[in-house]
């Protein structure tokens, strides 16, 4: 007896498209993946729609409109497993900066006729609206981790995605610590692993685009940043960027009001 093929769906909410593009960036594996599963809904790739329910839904983007708030409920109802991919879907993304401002001001800066624009005052993670089976972080996600997540759900096991910090990845690459050796401010100690420590490998401090790791020590982190000469305003800026809405980053950022 042959096992029925799994049905994969890819959904987009408010986002830049980069995380679903990561799947198409798996140039060596894409056709193999398409052989193993049915791509049942992925508008960027094909207009064909195979009706749900879906075995695995990948969700990119955050919830920023009333329509999308309703749509995610329908997506959840049709999905056996739902995995969110990227900073927008797992935390609200950079567009969550609106959560700390007046949305009407934001609309007025960009559009001459604000009455045409339908938007919520906040940008929120998918998990704020529906239960989520797994969250894959990153702005953008790492495509090797995306493949691991898809393979894991195909095999009905938990994905093997480490929850430690970027610091651990840097050590594994045997990088010299740029914060200790060169005094370059770096969010590596509190940032979730997954990127393979690319910024420190390019002589640049980590800017936190994979969001907070589990149990980050934020106070110790900002102590280090201050010691490297970073002023409050810049500490607040770096924490209020791609994971601005993640609780540890946001809470710490409010301690550094410029």
């Amino acid at each position, binding site marked *: 007896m042959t096992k029925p093929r799994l049905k994969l769906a890819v959904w987009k909410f408010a986002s830049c*498209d980069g995380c679903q593009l990561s799947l198409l960036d798996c*140039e060596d594996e894409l056709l193999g993946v398409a052989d193993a599963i049915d791509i049942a809904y992925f508008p*960027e*790739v094909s207009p064909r729609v195979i009706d749900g329910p879906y075995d695995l839904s990948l969700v990119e983007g955050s919830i*920023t409109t009333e329509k999308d708030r309703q749509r995610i409920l329908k997506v959840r109802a049709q999905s056996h497993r739902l995995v969110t991919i990227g900073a927008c879907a797992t935390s609200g993304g950079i567009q969550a900066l609106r959560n700390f401002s007046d949305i009407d001001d*934001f609309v007025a800066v960009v559009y001459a006729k604000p009455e045409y624009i339908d938007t919520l005052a906040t940008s929120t993670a998918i998990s704020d609206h529906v239960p989520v089976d797994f969250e894959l972080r990153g702005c953008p996600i790492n495509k090797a981790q995306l493949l691991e997540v898809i393979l894991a759900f195909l095999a009905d096991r938990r994905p093997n995605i480490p929850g430690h910090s970027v610091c651990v990845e840097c050590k594994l690459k045997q990088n010299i610590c740029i914060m200790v050796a060169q005094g370059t401010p770096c969010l590596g100690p509190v940032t979730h692993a997954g990127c393979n420590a690319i910024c420190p490998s390019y002589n640049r401090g980590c*800017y936190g685009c994979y969001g907070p790791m589990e149990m980050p020590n934020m106070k110790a982190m900002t102590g280090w940043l201050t010691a490297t000469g970073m002023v409050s305003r810049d500490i607040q800026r770096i924490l209020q960027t*791609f994971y601005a809405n993640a609780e540890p980053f946001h809470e710490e950022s409010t301690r550094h009001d410029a």
Partner: protein
Amino acid sequence: MTRREISVDYIARVEGEGALKITISNGAVENVELKIFEPPRFFEAFLRGRDFREAPDITARICGICPVAYQMSAVQAMEQACGVEVPSPIRDLRRLLYCGEWIESHALHIYMLHAPDFLGYEGAIDMAKDMPGVVERGLQLKKVGNKIMSLLGGREIHPINVKVGGFYKTPTRKELEPLAESMKWARDAAIETVRWVSQFDFPAHERDYEFVALRGDGEYPLGDGRIASNRGLDISVAEFEKHVSEDQVPYSNALHARIKARDSYLVGPLARYNLNAHQLSPLARATAKEAGLADQCRNLAQSIIVRSIEVLYACDEALRIIDQYSPPSEPSVSVEPKVAIGYACTEAPRGILYHRYQIDGEGTIQDAVIIPPTSQNQLSIEQDLRALIVEEIDLDDETLRALCERTIRSYDPCISCATHFLKLDRVEC
């Protein structure tokens, strides 16, 4: 009275969320609306108050398909504001990185989004069942573009190595060498691509577009040049907003741009080619000629040939840069902020991408204006659709709908980009 309504709820094989609604009343086109329902994300609003050095990383997140375009326009606008010019090895490396993005983005569009329309497939994955070698070639070509992005940028999507003033780390000659090997394969694959797509059947529709692109100074334009058109526009980047206006329409989260003195205009590969074909590399020119592509082309469907020629050019140009490369003495030059306005315009894969920033003496952004290619093309897309329907009004709804979708895809619209625009009443001259 007879009314026909043709609509597409979610246009497939384009980047982002868009829909189409056409109303035909008594045999005449009443309304054509390309609806961009992608939710707005307000980049220009939250850029205010940020540091000028943050602009390249923040604006990259507008689009996952063309992040390098955003980074290049942002860093150059900031450098222009601060009166800094980067040394030529840094300019060359930026050009190399941009070649990577062109190859990656164009290969994606040619093979995965556009070609299925000509060959009668729903998508590239179905196409791969009948022509695995061809789709494999497209994917590997795309991968070579991505290889440049990861080597020079740190990663393919939202590269981390670009900064105002240059790069965080520049490669040695030895580190670039393996790229040259891949580029030579890619150059051959690009020639094959041109030959392959030039055999497609092209609908005869042509329109007399105003093509707007950068005009390169002795080279095909990527990162700089004056803004020019085939109808006499020839302006510096700083003059752009004097010549272009943007209107907001109720059915879309994107604004419509037009040339104030005239009407709609077209940006992208076709515009670049029509204005700059003579500046392509000899190999790209010869391959275009062999494929039967004249120096002037008004058939939008043939943009797939032009994209393929541009992939070939990007491979050639990348090889030239790698061959002549000698690392800069420092990976970046120092850029001190001052009270100023900076402008930049670069050629994103889909056409010119304009940035303007006003910064204060501490480098805090006071105002940001971003005009992406798809907003500039939106009016032209709607006019193309109107012309198409007038010509093909006797076709049944299903065929007409499919033709309309093909027209939209020929533009390679990037809807995530298009969904945030500047305020109309600011554009006064």
